[in-house]
């Protein structure tokens, strides 16, 4: 493989320190200047056991997605690790405990079912830890030491990571962990001296700005703080809960408040109330909670009240697959309200966009006086990427409200039918500009009015207004050579990263293919999308849902019927699958 592109897995049982080990790999490699993308999977059940797997992809070029193939497996529990065998490359490196706490019979062991070509590195994790630090707790650090030595990663990077992780803890704990790591490192250096690898010796690491490890959820939380969020109202739900928990800690420090409400209906209700009163407020939820918000979201549309609603998608329908990823709430976000209830829907495709789009959403909600739905998904929320710390620009956090200036005497028309559809909005507390916001159809002055003409004109105004938001919404981005393309791949959300990786790989194989990133899902940029599809022989739209929800939304913009590539697996979209499909289509076209 050209340069560095290694996927490392740690697999164990809850309690083995699996997640911690994976995290330290991410930190160490990030400090080392590599690009890192990590994603963990936990057991679905609460109880303190079940399989934990961390996957870290480490490379010397930008990394946009995880792929299926794993090059290094660190097994803290052989029984659980057996489930990982299908994704291991033939010449995979496997570090495992040669004297595990739970012994399994030879023939049922991990080693027994591994491909013979696998490069095995047995180490007595527990014993080494016990010897070094007096306790087996450090097994996972011994394993990391082994990993650093075997794969040729700079041990100092790991020591840094360990220091950082345990600085809060007591010196003794820190020392114990360092000792365990060193014990593993030393053991492997000596024991495997003749088979040591150099997987991470990369000549030219891009010397970019200092990078931080951020998950999508943390990026969203930080964005809300930087955007000047004042109130967060929410109800716990996977995978959105971490946002609430992060803000519960940080927001009060900035004079704001987080209120755990009794349900999602009251959460969006309070967000609308606070926004009506002129403060920045938001809520975050997932499919089931989003469904409950439907009625009040349409109220925000009709009464023209701002609101920022984050929908962290998970497997559905209904309670579905709470700990799995999916992109199946697009229809609900765009079409999910009774009446002609259009609103703004945007979907970031990576951690950095999670930050910038969340920041932007508050201003959009204010300016266009509408609920803004930010769609993420479990994979995007929980994966970590090492990125330059995102910082909002002043113009992105600036107040988006447009206030009325009414010359004395003349009555204030809250719902004035302007050309843009945007009506200057007064905030309670502003003298002489009282009005009543209502979900009933109303006149420009906000009085209920069901007359045919008024409803037609007000419907037009609201529609016009949302379409007008296109001017402020991110345009689709093309990643393609000029001229005709044999295959164009359109991606959204977490799947776009996989799509782009696939397209780049296909291009390296000489195919004329391109990718289009769509982040504004409603309203969307018809012309730009048409411009791209018009030069594609075939348009491929991969989505993490069963029925192809983006296709049903924008399919009509394709010259010929777009080709869906749908997965309802609950897993991140593997770039290799998309690449295969691209090649298939390109060949078919070539014939």
């Amino acid at each position: 493989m050209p340069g560095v592109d290694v996927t490392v897995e740690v697999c164990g049982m809850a309690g083995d320190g699996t997640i911690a080990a994976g995290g330290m790999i991410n930190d160490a490699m990030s400090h080392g200047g590599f690009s890192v993308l990590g994603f963990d999977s936990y057991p679905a059940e609460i109880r303190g056991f079940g399989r934990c797997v961390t996957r870290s992809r480490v490379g010397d070029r930008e990394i946009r997605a995880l792929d299926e193939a794993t090059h290094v497996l660190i097994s803290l529990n052989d029984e659980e690790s057996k489930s990982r065998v299908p994704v291991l490359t033939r010449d995979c490196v496997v570090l495992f405990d040669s004297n595990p706490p739970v012994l399994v019979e030879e023939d049922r062991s991990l080693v027994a079912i591994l491909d013979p070509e696998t490069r095995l590195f047995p180490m007595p994790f527990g014993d080494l830890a016990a010897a070094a630090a007096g306790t087996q707790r450090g097994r996972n650090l011994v394993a990391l030491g082994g990993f650093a030595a075997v794969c040729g990663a700079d041990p100092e990077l790991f020591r840094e990571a360990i220091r950082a992780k345990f600085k809060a803890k007591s010196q003794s704990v820190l020392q114990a962990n360092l000792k365990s790591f060193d014990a593993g490192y030393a053991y492997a250096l000596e024991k495997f001296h003749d088979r040591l690898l150099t997987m991470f010796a990369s000549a030219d690491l891009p010397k970019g700005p200092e990078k931080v490890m951020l998950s999508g959820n943390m990026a969203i939380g930080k964005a809300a703080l930087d955007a000047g969020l004042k109130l967060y109202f929410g109800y716990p739900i996977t995978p959105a809960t971490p946002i609430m928990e992060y803000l519960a800690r940080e927001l009060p420090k900035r004079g704001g408040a987080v209120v755990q409400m009794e349900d999602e209906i009251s959460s969006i209700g309070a967000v609308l109330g606070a926004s009506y009163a002129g403060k920045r407020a938001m809520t975050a939820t997932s499919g089931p909670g989003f469904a409950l918000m439907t009625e009040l979201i349409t109220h925000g549309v009709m009464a023209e009240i701002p609101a920022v609603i984050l929908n962290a998608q998970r497997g559905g329908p209904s309670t579905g697959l709470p700990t799995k990823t999916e992109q199946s709430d697009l229809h609900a976000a765009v079409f999910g309200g009774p009446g002609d209830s259009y609103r703004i829907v945007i979907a970031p495709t990576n951690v950095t966009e999670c930050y910038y789009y969340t920041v932007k959403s508050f201003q959009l909600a204010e300016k266009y006086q509408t609920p803004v739905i930010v769609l993420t998904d479990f994979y995007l929320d929980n994966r970590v990427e090492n990125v330059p710390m995102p910082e909002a620009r002043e113009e992105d956090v600036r107040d988006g409200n447009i206030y009325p200036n009414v010359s004395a005497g003349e009555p204030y028309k809250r719902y004035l039918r302007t050309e843009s559809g945007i009506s200057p909005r007064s905030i309670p507390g502003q003298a002489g500009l009282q009005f009543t916001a209502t979900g009933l159809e109303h006149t420009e002055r906000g009085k209920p009015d069901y007359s045919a003409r008024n409803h037609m004109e007000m419907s037009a105004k609201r529609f016009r207004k949302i379409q007008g938001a296109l001017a402020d919404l991110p345009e689709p981005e093309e990643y393609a050579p000029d001229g005709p393309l044999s295959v164009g791949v359109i991606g959204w959300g977490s799947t776009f990263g996989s799509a782009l990786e696939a397209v780049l790989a296909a291009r390296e194989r000489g195919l004329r293919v391109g990718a289009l990133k769509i982040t504004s899902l409603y309203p969307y940029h018809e012309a730009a999308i048409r411009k791209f599809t018009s030069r594609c022989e075939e348009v491929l739209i991969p989505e993490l849902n069963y029925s192809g929800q983006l296709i049903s939304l924008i399919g009509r913009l394709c010259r010929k019927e777009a080709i869906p590539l749908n997965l309802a697996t609950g897993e991140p979209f593997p770039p290799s699958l998309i690449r295969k499909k691209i090649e298939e289509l390109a060949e078919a076209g070539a014939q």
Partner: protein
Amino acid sequence: MKTPGKVLADKVRAIGEAKIFEVRSESLPTWCPGCGYFGIHQGLNACIKELGMPLHKVVTVSGIGCAGRYPFFTRTYGLHTVHGRTLPVATGVKMANPDLTVFAVGGDGDGLAIGGGHLPHVARRNVNINYLLFDNSIYGLTKGQPSPSSPLGMTSKASPYGTLDKPLNATLMALTYGASFVARLFAGDPKGITNALLEGARHPGFSIFHIYTSCVTFDKSFKTWEHLKEWVHPLPKDHDPTDLRQAFDQVLQDDFSVGVIYKRG
């Protein structure tokens, strides 16, 4: 001779013109002539006047129903939300800007049926909102179905054979939820409403005003003015509103005593 419609129209105008409030909107309330809500309107308008609150610092939040129409009949800022969500939305308004005085108004269907899940929590949180529950024990706007506070056996188009469910007691519920200010009032006594509202509005925390009123159009037999006038009476002189146990006892033994029932010191 005039058409019935005309006669009613005049009646409403009369009711409107009888009292001049700066607080009420120029447009007349669209409530039926004789509706108990006019009395509540009168009581709240007077309270806002006496509080000396500038109208642009007052927000009236409502749900859906005849009661929910309230914001259109006042000159304060208004927020006419959806059915049953009066309290969560009012919570957002008040928390966003504590300088605002927030009145939340809604009917018994709005507050005890579809919105019944919010009252316990706004009470627990003790957000400084003043909630007026217009309890006419019927769904007025939808033309007369029974509500959670309708009496057993009440007949209506929706309950032709009489209702089977025991009515809920909003005052008792408020006490149970730990509301810090609880008053039970009567729409026929605007002055009493004004006084309780003044006290509650000044109380730093959630205040609920459970107001008995009558739907003259769809309830011809149960909670009529005649009956309410006969049933309702003041709290005993010696009632101590700072004593929670006394408040419970009072409410458990008497459904129709009105006044400030509980007030946390």
